[in-house]
């Protein structure tokens, strides 16, 4: 369908959509069309109308609303300063950071642009982050094996199967039609198994410094191969890095994720961070029935009671809870700190995370029946 060329008056609105895209918002062409139509519909009698039309049609996620409004002001009002960081006061003084693209993240549809600028920036960072060759191989083998070996549960979606409790009447009727109304064999439906959600929590505090890069690489491999997964980092704050790690290119993904985490190598407040996680219903919901993996040495500087309480509540929600610590490499390792001792009863496994190999081994064997 041919459309007449856009009138000049539409130009600033189309330009706003591309400004949004440049800042990591997903603004599809059909949304821009709807935006223009909405503005025509509303008059517009004031800038507020345009703003509301933008909210409704370009659909910024609520946690990025302030950033969106700042861009809007900058574009339509000419406001100079962009407040990128939005300071939100969290009850426990623990800041929760949602994924939002940092300067390094390419636009969402950037697979074609891998050799572009973003990649070169990422390359500079990559030497330390990409890891040694044997680790890369381990992770590749891990990814290939993973889809078969992650824990599953019976889903609620039913599919055609050789045997099962349900009858596939639709298929039966099609066959009956071919056989003059006779049904010789009853086609069956069975519940399709579904991968359990995975929740990976990575401690990025100073005491874990030697392992954090490897843990992020491991997280990337896991995110790329698993179906439903959420990844958070904890240190002095809680950061969601799932979206960043979904980028296919490892160097890009790690650079983006690292850009999000602002509390590298700092102190540890595991308890507060986990409490902050539980206080966001949307996050807490992702732990339900999940395989929960916590990569941390458990060296808590805050109140051990907060940590015990948080772990107890997480364990009640999760299907499985593994605490993976690099300290457990030593076969004679026994948890010594008060915090770690007090959470022992809630753990399904306290395992070794001293090498990527051990980590992969542990995750691949999660679905095996647990030893009594």
């Amino acid at each position, binding site marked *: 369908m041919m459309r007449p060329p856009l009138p000049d008056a539409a130009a600033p609105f189309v330009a706003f959509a591309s400004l949004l895209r440049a800042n990591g918002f*997903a603004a*599809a062409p*059909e*949304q821009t*069309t*709807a935006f223009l*139509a*909405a503005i*025509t*519909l*509303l008059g517009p009698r004031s800038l*507020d*109308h345009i703003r*509301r*039309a933008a*909210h*409704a*049609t370009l*659909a910024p996620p*609520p946690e990025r*609303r302030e950033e969106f409004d700042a861009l809007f002001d900058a574009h339509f009002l000419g406001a100079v300063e962009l407040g990128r960081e939005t300071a939100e006061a969290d*009850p*426990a003084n623990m800041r929760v950071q949602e994924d939002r693209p940092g300067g390094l993240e390419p636009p*969402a549809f950037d697979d074609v642009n891998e050799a572009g600028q973003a990649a070169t920036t990422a390359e500079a960072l990559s030497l330390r982050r990409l890891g040694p060759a044997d680790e890369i191989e381990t992770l590749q083998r891990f990814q290939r094996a993973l889809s078969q070996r992650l824990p599953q549960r019976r*889903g*609620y*979606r*039913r599919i055609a199967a050789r045997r099962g409790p349900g009858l596939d*009447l*639709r298929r*039966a*009727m099609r066959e*009956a*039609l071919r056989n*003059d*109304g006779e049904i010789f064999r009853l086609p069956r439906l069975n519940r399709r198994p579904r991968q359990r959600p995975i929740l990976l929590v990575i401690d990025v505090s100073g005491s874990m410094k030697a392992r954090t890069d490897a843990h992020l690489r491991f997280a990337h491999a896991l995110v790329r191969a698993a179906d439903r997964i959420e990844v958070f980092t904890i240190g002095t704050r809680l950061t969601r890095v799932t979206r960043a790690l979904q980028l296919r290119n490892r160097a890009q993904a790690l650079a983006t994720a690292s850009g999000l985490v602002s509390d590298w190598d700092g102190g540890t407040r595991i308890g507060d961070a986990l*409490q*902050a996680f*539980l*206080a966001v*219903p*949307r996050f*807490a*919901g*992702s732990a339900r029935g999940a395989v929960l993996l916590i990569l941390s040495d458990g060296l808590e500087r805050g109140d051990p009671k907060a940590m015990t309480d948080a772990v107890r*509540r997480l364990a009640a929600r999760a299907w499985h809870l593994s605490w993976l610590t690099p300290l457990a490499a030593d076969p004679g390792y026994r948890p010594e700190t008060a915090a770690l001792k007090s959470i022992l009863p809630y753990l399904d496994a306290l395992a070794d995370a001293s090498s990527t190999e051990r980590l992969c081994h542990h995750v691949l064997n999660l679905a095996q029946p647990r030893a009594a």
Partner: protein
Amino acid sequence: MVVRAKIAGIDSPEALAHALSSAFYLADDGLATAAYLALALGKPLLLEGAPGVGKTEAAKAFSGVLGRSLIRLQCYEGIDAAAALYEWNYPRQMLAIRQAGDKPVDIYRDEFLIERPMLQALRSPNSAVLLLDEIDRSDHEFEALLLEFLSDFTISIPERGTLAARERPVVILTSNRTRELHDALRRRCVYHFIGYPAPDREAQIIMLRASSVAEETARAVVAAVGRLRREPLTKPPGIAEAVDWAEAATVLAKGGASWPDAFKRSIGVAIKDEEDNIQIAPRLDAIITGAAA
């Protein structure tokens, strides 16, 4: 894009907000604008927000304002075409095959088709509002199933071909944000995030919903609920809880309980989680006396 500036006598967001308020729903400017745009642009309306902020109520109010019946489809994991779109009437198909004998028979005619909510809405676009409730509870497969319907308002039935709506039906989707919806779904919709209302508006809502509640009570409840929402609770009280709380406290106070006591004893309708109760218990007195003051 088909644009209808005027639907059922509503020609602006302000007119819609006015109509909604006479249907006992107080919509803010953002919601009224988004809803009006959805109607005018013929796009589905996606409402997101925490549980209990009135997403489903909004859908009910819209159907009232438009004078249409509400077809509600509650989503759940594993919901499929047979529950959401259409189903064949198998016993009657079987009967038809048997009765036909050696004559050819078409068992995929309309009389064997059972309409499920989405097909129902598709076939009566001018007399129904379709509510797809709690879409975040469904799985990716169902989201994919929705895409065709939400962009073109058509349903493809393999045995029959594609059924298209004569006119675009009004569709409202709600989500509690327990998971992220696919971008393909989001961009087909007009979007609005319903947050907790400002205190004044919430007090108005309480008095509108529960006529027996005095203004003082409503304001006290709003203040208390506002403080509770700032606590790290698993289930922060929504608007529905605030209304219940105000009503419960009023009932207890009429039964002779002293005022702050009635307020405190009825906390069970606002906080419905044992862990939240334990968490809040030490500060509850301060919150309630602070709010009642």
